[in-house]
Structure formats: structure tokens, C-alpha cells
């Protein structure tokens, strides 16, 4: 019974694959495997939303994991592997957008927005202080003097 069910299960399963397939070989050198993992975390699964290929169950992600390991075995540096991927898939494949002329506004947006916010706040505060503590006009001075005099008379 048990076995039949499992067979039914795998028939239904069709071509879908989980992230760790039995055929997916990890690199034998732990240091190299760790490097591969780090690189994979930076690569986008091409058919998912904002997932890295480490986290993805998609078949295509698995293929790319295999390619990354192959490149590492072939002696590529981390940067070379990333370049290898961007040459094929474009910057789109990188989860972290490159810092260049077009993305500079994106990367600097937190600082820019903070700066603008600060300027607005400081200007606002200054305006308000000026508004409330504006020096008295001549007329007001006179009236104060008058009031003081009246008091003095009584």
C-alpha cells in the first residue's frame, strides 16, 4: 500500500522539483560550497518574484545552481561567476542592483529623502519661531507704554 501510494504521488508530481533534488551534487570542498552558496544568494531565480536561487524550488533555479558550482570548480572568482551570469541574463539576474549612473538615485534615495525632510523641518521650525517671536511694532510699543503709564497713575 505504502509503496503504491508513493508511486501515485510521484506520478502526480510530474516534472516539478524541490530545491534539493537527489541529483544535485554539492561541492566536496566545504569552503568552495560556502562560496557557491554566497553567490547563489545574490542571484535571482528567473521565474520567481524576488527570490534567490538558493530559496527557489523552480527547475530553472536548480539549473543555475549547477552552473554556479561548475564555474567555481572551473576556478572562477566570485566576481567572475557574477559577470558570467550578467553577461547571459543582464543586470536583471542580480538581486542587488549594481551601483552605477542609473541606479545612483535609488541607492542614495534614503539619504536624499532624509536630507530633504530635515531641511523642511528646520525651515518650518524657524518660520514658526519668527512668526511667534516677531519684534513688537512701534504701535504695540506705544500701547504697552500707555498701559504701563495708566497702571502707574493709579
Amino acid at each position, binding site marked *: 500500500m505504502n509503496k503504491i501510494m508513493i*508511486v501515485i504521488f510521484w506520478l502526480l508530481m510530474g516534472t516539478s522539483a524541490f530545491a534539493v533534488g537527489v541529483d544535485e551534487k554539492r561541492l566536496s570542498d566545504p569552503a568552495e560550497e560556502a562560496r557557491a552558496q554566497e553567490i547563489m544568494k545574490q542571484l535571482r531565480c528567473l521565474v520567481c*518574484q524576488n527570490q534567490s536561487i538558493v*530559496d527557489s524550488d523552480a527547475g530553472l533555479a536548480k539549473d543555475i545552481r549547477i552552473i554556479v558550482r561548475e564555474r567555481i570548480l572551473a576556478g572562477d572568482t566570485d566576481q567572475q561567476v557574477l559577470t558570467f551570469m550578467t553577461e547571459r541574463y543582464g543586470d536583471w539576474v542580480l538581486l542587488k542592483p549594481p551601483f552605477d549612473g542609473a541606479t545612483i538615485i535609488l541607492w542614495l534615495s534614503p539619504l536624499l529623502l*532624509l536630507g530633504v525632510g530635515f531641511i523642511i523641518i528646520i525651515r518650518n521650525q524657524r518660520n514658526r519661531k519668527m512668526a511667534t517671536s516677531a519684534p513688537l511694532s512701534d504701535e504695540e510699543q506705544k500701547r504697552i507704554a500707555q498701559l504701563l503709564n495708566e497702571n502707574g497713575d493709579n
Partner: protein
Amino acid sequence: MIAELGHFALILACSLSVIQGVFPLYGSINGNGRMMGISLPAAYGQFLFVSFAFAALMYSFIVSDFSVANVATNSHTLKPMLYKVSATWGNHEGSILFWALILALFGAMVAFFGRNLPRKFHVTVLSVQAFVGLGFYLFLLLTSNPFERIFPFPNEGNGLNPLLQDPGLAFHPPLLYLGYVGLSVTFSFAVAALIEGRVDAAWARWVRPWTLLAWCFLTTGLTLGSWWAYYELGWGGWWFWDPVENAAFMPWLVATGLLHSAIVVEKRDTLKAWTILLAIIAFSFSLLGTFIVRSGVLTSVHAFATDPERGVFILLFLFLVIGGSLFLFALRADKLQPGGLFAPISRESMLIINNLLLSVSALVVMFGTLYPLLRDALTGEKITVGPPFFNMAFGSLMIPLIIVMALGPMANWKRADLMGILSRLKFMMVVSLVATLAFYYMAGGGAIMAAVWLGLGMWLLFSTLYEWSERIKLFKGGALKRILRQPRASMGMTFGHLGLAIAVLGMAATSYWDSEYQGIMGYGDKATIAGYEVTLNSTDGIIGPNYTAVRASFDVNKDGQKVTTLEPEARVYMTPPMPTTEAAILSTFLGDLFVVIGEANSENYDLWAVRLYFKPLQAWLWTGVAIMVLGGFISLSDRRFRTGTIKGKK
């Protein structure tokens, strides 16, 4: 028949919203009491009819009436009853109807509980609420009719996405929507205040509980979604900066800011224009979020183009609501007289910093989410803005926020003494530093940023506790009485900040010290992770109501003692055919052991792909958020929200 009645009720609700929007507003401007009188009955009636429409749709799902197109596309007879019911709001049309339902519910609640508000103001609020509702009714009736029939109708439905067939996700959208729509009330109050040209402490007292309620629901909804992703998607991640998550996170950030700035309006009668603006922005983000998700524009630009009718409607509606309210703001903002002055170092200033950082982070999240879209539209280049960007940009904004968060509650209104506060916290700085180093050492070192986040969490934890102990004079007689007699709002603040501290510690630990094992296991094979020894015992075939699955049984031992048996499943749903992973999790105080079963080798089915994760302090994250929400509800029960709030304004 039932579906037609539902459709009809929806049309009636739509008509009522026009009546509720137009006549009472006219009456309140011209002082016509009769016209203003329409407002309340119309609000109740609207709620009644939308409830009926929603019930009609739910009924169609429960009885699997496949002649209704929506049911045919999203349901299936074999689906368990819970998911038949939850499918009502688990699709585009149904979820918009659900939005309209909550909107009408809150409208009716404002109508009922707001009876002691000044009449003109009350009526204006309800009019604004009705106009927002009208937008949703028209969207439903013109572009997304949930009651549309198909002929010939199929004998069986297409089923619901299996990933959505989970209790966590059944209740995630309703909670999120309660939050989104709760912000509509705040929005209506803000717009009504602009129309009337006045904002005062009584206004803030009215707006605070609604914001707080919306915030509690938003927080719960977001966390439920995150928790679901954690146990359902099968690799132990809990936040992906996915556009859909971001769409829900942006209003949360602004609502959190609004919660704090409304305090300043209430206590100090200042920051009024800013608070109104935040209320408008918070709801604009909710609308944007709903429609971004619903129009599918972020998944791909093409989803938008394939259904231009909806897209154009959405754009128009967003333009009217956001543009209109901002225009009104520009016209009227200077009418809101600023109140009390304050020094650069004061509680007001710290709350402004809070607002600045939260608003900027919401904008950065928005920019990062929309950037690929903008770039694609402008240059045709495709680019990804993924977690590394958000973690860096958002994270760096949160560091100053948490630092200030510890100081804020200790600062006086108007003018505070920063050096004094720091010297009061001197001891706590040492304590948090020691705790951080001890923790860091026990975890076996790690990234510098890990220590930074740990330090921030500890700093917030200890300084919040210190502020509390100072406030209630913990070490003097009768402290217990003072603890219990604290105003609920201050209690809520303490819980909220403590909760965040605990959540930050959890996030830091689980992000930087998680460990992982991936490998192939045969029966009886052992794998070790974080001190646990995990043995694959057996696997078994399972037939569920609408899926088949393999259930594996793992023995978990620690120090030679059996701890528990974990049984993860790999399921394959029948309609639509799709595999899902059901992770098995052993959750402890120190961390979660997370087990996932994968493929077997196709010859003998005796070797299995297995993934194990250890997520240190994962439970702290969920617990921390739960404490935050608890704080929200405690604050909501504060006396001044229940009694004597509006009397002064009458």
C-alpha cells in the same frame, strides 16, 4: 437566484453611498438638518446591503454554484469547507467586495459611535467615507462583478491555489484588509477636518483609536503572512521584500508614524498639518497597496495591459482620491494654526524624528518596489531590486530610529535635557553592552552587523524597562498598585516598545546565526544540526481531501535524549496540480528546528532529499510582534478613548 439578489444588493448599496455622500454634505454646508439626517440611516443601510451581497457570494461558494464565474474559477467541490469559505475573499472580485464590506462596516461604526461628535463634522466624515465606498462599488459593478454568471457552466471548478489552502492564509487577507480599511476612517476624519478647517485635541482623540485599531490589524495581518511564508514556503525565510509584501508594509510604516504624531496633536496641539498629511498618505498607501496587488501591475507590467479596463479605473480612482485630498490639503493646510512651540531637544522633536524616519523608509520601500517598473517603462532595461537593497536601505534607517526610540519616552515635552537622559541611561548602556557581548560570544561570533542589531535590540529592551521602572518607581513601596494604575496608553507604549525590542533580537539572531543542512538521507540515517540529532525513520503515503502526500517521520534527539518526532509532508494537490511543502517545526525558546522533506530517488524510493534548518530565536520574532499588538489593544482600552472625549467639543 441568490447571486442575482447579491448583485442587486450591491447596486442598492452603491446607490445608497451616493445618497450618503451627496445630500448630507450639501445639508451640512447649508445647515439643512433634514438632509443631514439621511446620513446615519444611509450608512446603516449600506452596511446591510453589502453584508447581504457578501453573504450571497459566500453562499455560492459554500454550495459550489459553478454557474457563478467567480466560484467556477476559484473553487472545487473537494475543497474543505474552511477553504470554500475563505475562497470568497481569496480572489480578485471577492476581495474587493470584502474591502467594500469592511468599509461599510466601519462606516456604520463611525455612524453609531460618533453620535456625540459635532453633528456637522460627523456628517462630513460619513460623506467622505461614502465617496470612498462609491469608488469601490463602481469598481466592482463596472469591472469586477463577483456575481457574473457563465453559461454553459462547468461541472467542476478550477480549485484554489494550493498555497492559499492554509489556515494562516485564510485569515491573513481579512486582517490585512481590516487594517487597510481602518485607515480609511482616519482618512475621512482628516478630509472632514480639512473641509471644516479645524483640528484640535478632540480630533486627535477620535483619530487615535481608529489608527491604533487599524495598526493592530495591519500588524497582525502582516505577521500572519510572514509566519505563513515561514512555515509554508519551506526554506524558513520570513520576509522577502516581495512587491506584495511591500505594498502592505508601506501603509504600516506610515500608520506607525501617524500613531505617534497624533499623540503630539492630542497632547501639545501642534504638528496638525503634518498629522493630517500623514493620515492622507497612510490611506493612499493602503489604496495603492490594494490596487498594486489586485491589478498585478508589479508581477509584470503586462498584467496591467491585458486588462486595461480595470487598470484605467484604478488609476483614475487613485488620482481622484489621492490627488483630490492632497489638493484640499494644499488649499486648507495653512488654516490649521500651529500650537505649542518646542525646543530642538524635546519629546516633540523626537517624535518628529520618528515620523521623518518612518516616512522616509516608507518612501524608500515604495521607490525600491516601483524602481524596476519605472526603469523598464523609461528605458526598457530590466533590473531587479531585491532583498540586499531593501535590507541595506531600510536597515540603515531603522538604526537611528531604534536609538531615538529608547530616548523618546524619557524626554519631556517642550524642552528636554539630552545629557540628563543619557546619564540616567548610563547604567543601561553598560548592561546592554555586556548582554550583547555575552550573547555574541555565546553565539560564537559572527558578522559585525549581527552585533550591531543585537546591541540595538538590547538597548531598546533595557532602556524601555528602565523608563518603565522609573515611571512607576519600581523600588519604592506600593509599586504594584502603581503598575496597575498606569494609564493604559502608557502601558501600551511600554508593551509596544518592548515587543519591538524582542522582535529585533529575534530578527538579528535568526538572520545572522541560522544554520542549514541539505542532504540525501536513507532510512536510519542521521544528520546533526545545532546540537540536534535528526534520524529519518520512515515515510508513508497519505491521501488528503484534495491532495496526496508523502509524510516522513524524523526522530529528534538532543544529548542522547529523545525530544520529539517531526513529521514534515510533501504534498501534491490535484486541482490545480501543484506541489507544496509542509515543514515540521520544533519551536523552542532558543530556536526553531525546521525539517523539510523533498524528492526521493526514482528507482527505489529509499533515499530522500532532506533540508534541516536551525533558526535561533525565531519564536522571539513572533512573540515580540504579538506583544506589540497586545500593547496596541491595551492602549486602545485607555479610559480617555471611552469616556468624556468629545464632550468638550460639543
